[in-house]
C-alpha cells in the first residue's frame, strides 16, 4: 500500500501541465482528484515516474451555458456537477449521474476531466457523457482539438488522448428530454456492476461496465427510433456485447442486468 517512488510537479496552468507532460514522456501522469490514480499507485498497479498535479488549476473549474450547450471545465469536481444550478436546468442527467459517483469524499475530490481521462469502463460519468453525445476538448503542444465522446474511449483505461495532452473542457448539448440513470451495485460507494444512462427520451443510451469502454446501446437506440416499446427495445440491450466477468457478475448475469436496467431506465425516462 506504499507507492513506488515518483517525482512530483505542480502545474500552474494547462499549458504548463502540457509542457511538464511532454518533458515526462510516457511515464508522466496527470494528477487531478487522485481518487482513481493514487489507489492504483498504492497497489503498484500504476508506477508513474512523474506526477503532474493539475488540481490547483481553478480556472478549469466552471459550468456555463455556451451556444446552446453546457461547457464544463475539466477540473470541475463531481460535487460541483451534483449541485450545479446550470446542470439542473439544462442537463439534469449529468448532475444526477455525478451524485452517484463513489461517496461524498470521492465526489469532493474527483473531477469530470479526471474520470473521463481515466477511461474506466465501470465509471459512471463517461457513460453519461457518451449518452449525451458530448464533445471533449484536449490541449496539447500544438493547441486544442475536439474529440467526440463516441471516439474518445478506445479500450480498458485507454483513451484517444496523446501522452502529452490534457483534457481541458467537456461540452454536452443542453438535454432536458426524458432521462434516467440506473446504477446497480452492492454497496453504496461501489462502482457499478452494470449501469445504464438514458438521455433525451432514449435517443442516447449508454452502458457502464459492459465491455472495455463505456458503450452506446446502439440496438436499443435504433429500436426506439423505429418505434419499439421500452420493454422490446431493452431486450436488445446486451446484443453483440461481450461483457467482463468478475466476482460480482459473470457475463451472462451482466447481460441480464443490462436488459433489466435498460427497461427500468427507459420506463423511468418516460419511454412508453
Amino acid at each position: 500500500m506504499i507507492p513506488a517512488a515518483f517525482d512530483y510537479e505542480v502545474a500552474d496552468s494547462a499549458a504548463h501541465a502540457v509542457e511538464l507532460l511532454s518533458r515526462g514522456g510516457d511515464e508522466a501522469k496527470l494528477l487531478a482528484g487522485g481518487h482513481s490514480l493514487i489507489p492504483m499507485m498504492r497497489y503498484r498497479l500504476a508506477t508513474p515516474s512523474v506526477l503532474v498535479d493539475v488540481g490547483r488549476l481553478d480556472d478549469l473549474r466552471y459550468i456555463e451555458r455556451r451556444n446552446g450547450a453546457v461547457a464544463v471545465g475539466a477540473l470541475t469536481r463531481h460535487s460541483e456537477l451534483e449541485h450545479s444550478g446550470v446542470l439542473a436546468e439544462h442537463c439534469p442527467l449529468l448532475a444526477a449521474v455525478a451524485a452517484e459517483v463513489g461517496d461524498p469524499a470521492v465526489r469532493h475530490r474527483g473531477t469530470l476531466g479526471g474520470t473521463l481521462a481515466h477511461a474506466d469502463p465501470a465509471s459512471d460519468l463517461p457513460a453519461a457523457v457518451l449518452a449525451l453525445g458530448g464533445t471533449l476538448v484536449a490541449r496539447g503542444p500544438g493547441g486544442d482539438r475536439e474529440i467526440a465522446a463516441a471516439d474518445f474511449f478506445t479500450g480498458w483505461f485507454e483513451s484517444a488522448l496523446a501522452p502529452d495532452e490534457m483534457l481541458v473542457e467537456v461540452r454536452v448539448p443542453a438535454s432536458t428530454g426524458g432521462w434516467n440513470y440506473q446504477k446497480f451495485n452492492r454497496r453504496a460507494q461501489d462502482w457499478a456492476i452494470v449501469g445504464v444512462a438514458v438521455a433525451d427520451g432514449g435517443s442516447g443510451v449508454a452502458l457502464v461496465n459492459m465491455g472495455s469502454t463505456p458503450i452506446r446501446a446502439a440496438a436499443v437506440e435504433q429500436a426506439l427510433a423505429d418505434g419499439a416499446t421500452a420493454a422490446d427495445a431493452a431486450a436488445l440491450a446486451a446484443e453483440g456485447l461481450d461483457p467482463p466477468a468478475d466476482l460480482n457478475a459473470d457475463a451472462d448475469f451482466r447481460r441480464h442486468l443490462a436488459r433489466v436496467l435498460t427497461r427500468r431506465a427507459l420506463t423511468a425516462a418516460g419511454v412508453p
Partner: protein
Amino acid sequence: MTATATAEAEAPAPTAKATHFGSRRLRREDPALLTGEARFVDDLHLPGALWLGVVRSTEAHAVIHGIDTDAALRIEGVTEVLTGADLAPLWGGAALPCAWPVTDDMHNPPHLPVAVGEAKYAGDAVAVVLATSRYAAADGAAAVAVDYEPKPAAIDLASAAEPDSPLVHESLGTNASYTWELTPDPDAVEKAFAEAEHVIEERFIQQRLIPAAMEPRGVAAVPSPAGGELTLYSATQIPHILKVMTAVTLGIGENKLRVVAPAVGGGFGSKLNVYAEEIICSALALRKGVPVRWTESRSEAALATIQGRGQVQDIALAADADGRVKAVKARLLADMGAYLQLVTPGIPLLGAFLYHGCYDIGHYSFVCTGVFTNKTPTDAYRGAGRPEATYAIERAMDSLAAATGLTPEEVRARNFISADAFPYTSCAGLIFDSGDYHAVLDRAMALADLDARRADQARRRAEQNPRQLGIGFSSYVEMCGLAPSRVLASLNYGAGGWEAATVRVLPTAKVQVVTGATPHGQGHETAWSMIVADRLGIDPDDVEVLHSDTAVSPTGMDTYGSRSLAVGGTAIYMATERVLDKARVIAAHRLEASPEDLEYVDGSFRVRGTPASSVAFGEIAFAAFTAHDLPDGVEPNLEAHATYDPPNFTFPNGTHVATVEVDTETGAVEVVDYAAVDDCGRQVNPLIVEGQIHGGILQGAAQALYEDAVYTDDGQLATASLVDYLVPSAAEAPRYRLDSHVSPSPTNPMGVKGIGEAGTIAATPAVINAIVDALRPLGVTDVEMPASPQTVWRAIETARGRGGAS
C-alpha cells in the same frame, strides 16, 4: 431501546442505590478517538527505529529454491535482508504457539515466523527487509526475488479432506489435524433418527471471512540495550498472553519483557493471537539494539492476519410428527489454513456444544475434523464457533418448519427450553444459567410487527410483485464469559479463564482501577468506572481505569469471547467490595462502633439508627494514607485485588427477526427492517449494549450478504482489497429496532452475561432465512452465502428450471 426488566427478583441488586448502573452514560473513550488524540502503534514516535518489510509468498504452495537479495540491498535505506534460514537461529527453531491442542494426537506442524525451504500459503512470510524508512522497507520487500517451484495445493476445504488431495504438510500423510467428537449416547441418537417422523438433512458452507478491523495490525519492539529489557508495543487484544508467549518463544525472561497495547482500533478476534511479526520485531530489536517496527497494510492484512469461519457443515435433525426435535447430529469440516495459530483448532469447538441451539432436544452428536489447506490460517472471529453453530441449527429449523407446515416461530416455540427449566442441563453437558426464550420470541414478533409484515408479504405474492418480501427468524443462545478454568482444562486449553482487577483509592478519594481485560474499542473504561462509582457512591469521573500495559496491569487474560464484563467486570466488583470492607473497618474504628453496625449510604459510613454519627469516604481514604490512626493490624492503604474465576459460562440469548426485500429480477437483497430482542442479563450501560448489537448485526448481515474471502483454484486470494472484499458501510446498515429481556445470570453478583458477539451470531441466519422465506414459493430452499445478487438470481432461475443462462 426499552430495557424492560422482567425477572429482576433473583439476583441481588447491583447496589443499594444504583445511580449509574443501567444508565446511558456517554463513553469516556470517544473524545480521544474522535479527535485523533488517541495514539495507535503507528503513531508512536521512535527515533532511530528500523522498519520491517515482509516478503510474502506469491504462491499457495511452493518449494523455495533461492532468494535473491541483491536488488533489494541496492535500494537506499535498506540495511539488511534476512531469509527464514538466516533468522532461524534467532528463535532457535521454536515455532509460533498454538495454545489449544484439542486432542492428544492433534497434528501441529512447526510454524516458523519466517518459512524455511517451502511456502505453505500465499502470504506466508519467506524473508524480511530492514530499512531506515517504511518506504524503503516496502521498496526493498518488493525487490526481493524468490525462486519458487510451485507444488500442488489444497485449496477447497471439502476436497482437501479427501484422500487424494495434495498434502499441505507431506510428512503428516494427511491434511487432517484432528478429529474431535462429543456424542454422549450414540445409541440414543441413532434410535431417535430411526424413529423420527421427519429427518432434516442440510449441508451449509461457512465461507471464510476477513476480519478487517479498522486499524490493521502494527508492532514496535523497543529494546533497552543497557538492561536487556524489551518493550513490545502491539495492536493486540491480548498483551498479557502475548507477553508470556513471546517470552517463551524467544527464551527471554518474562521479567525483562513489557507489552503495551496502545489505542487499538478493533480486533474482532483477529488480534487475539501471537503473530510472526511480533516475534520477528522482538527478536531483531534485541539483536540490533534499536527499535524495530512494522505496520501492516490493508492488503497485507488480508493475507497475513487470520481469517474467520471456513466450515462445511452437515446437520441432521430427527423430529416427531409434531415438529418436536428429538436429536441433532452435526458433522463439520473446519478449515485450519496452512498452520495452527494461537487457538485455531479450538474455534469450531466453541460451537461444539451449541448445535442444538435454544432447543430441548434430548440427544446429541457432534464431530469435527480440522483440515489443513494452503491458505491463510483461521482463528477467532467475532462469535468464534457460535455463529457457525447458530447458523446451522437456525437454518435447519426453518427447513423443519417447511417440512411440517408449521410457521418458523411455532416450530421454535415448540422446541424451546422452557423458562422453568433453568438452570438447564443441556444434552451437550452445559448448564444454561437463565432465560425465558418464549417471552423473548413473543416480544420479537411484536417488535417486528409480524402480522403486518406477513400481510404485506401475502399481498406481494398475490400480485406477483417483482419485489418479494421475506421474514427470517433466528433464535440463539451462546456461551459467554470465557471461561471457567477447569472447563478449559477439560478441553485441553493451555491457560485459565480468570480475570484480575485492582481497585486503589488514592489519598484524595479519587480511584484507580486496574483491569486485566484489555479493551480495543468496547468501552471498558466507561463501564468499569460506572460499576465502581456506584459501589463507592462517588462520581464515575473520579474513577480512572488503567489497562493494556503489563507494567501497569501485570496480570490478566485480556478481551475476547464476550468475557470482559461477566469475568473482568465481576473481578472489578469483587475488588471494590473488598475496598469497602476495609473502609468499613477503618470507619468503625473512627466512629468507635462495630463494623457490623455500620451502613454505607451516599458515600458515608454511618451507625445504623444514628445517622448523625458518620464518616465520609474521603475521610477514610485520607486516614488510610496518613496512617495516623488506623486500627491495629490494618495496613496503611485502601486498595484491594481480586481474581475471579467464573464457576460457569453465561448464556446470552435472543430472537432476531429480519425483513428483507428481494428484487427477483436482479437478485438484489435489501434488509428493510431488523428487529432484535436480546437477553444479555443486566445491562451496565444500555448505550454500549446497543452499540455492540448494532455493529454485531451489521457484521453478521455482512456474512449473509457481502463478505467472502474468495480464493482462486490455485490459491490466490482474489479479495485482498476493500474494493473486492465487501465490508458494508453505514449506508448498508439496516434500520435497527431493539428491545431487551433481562434474566439476570445467577453465575455472577451483577447478573450480567455479555453482548459483544450476540448480534453477529444471530444476524447471519436471520437474513438468509428471510431471503429463503421470500423465495420459497418460487421453489428456492437454500441460498449460499454471501447472497450476492448473482447468487440469488441464479437460485431463482435454477428453481424455475432455467439455470440462469441467457
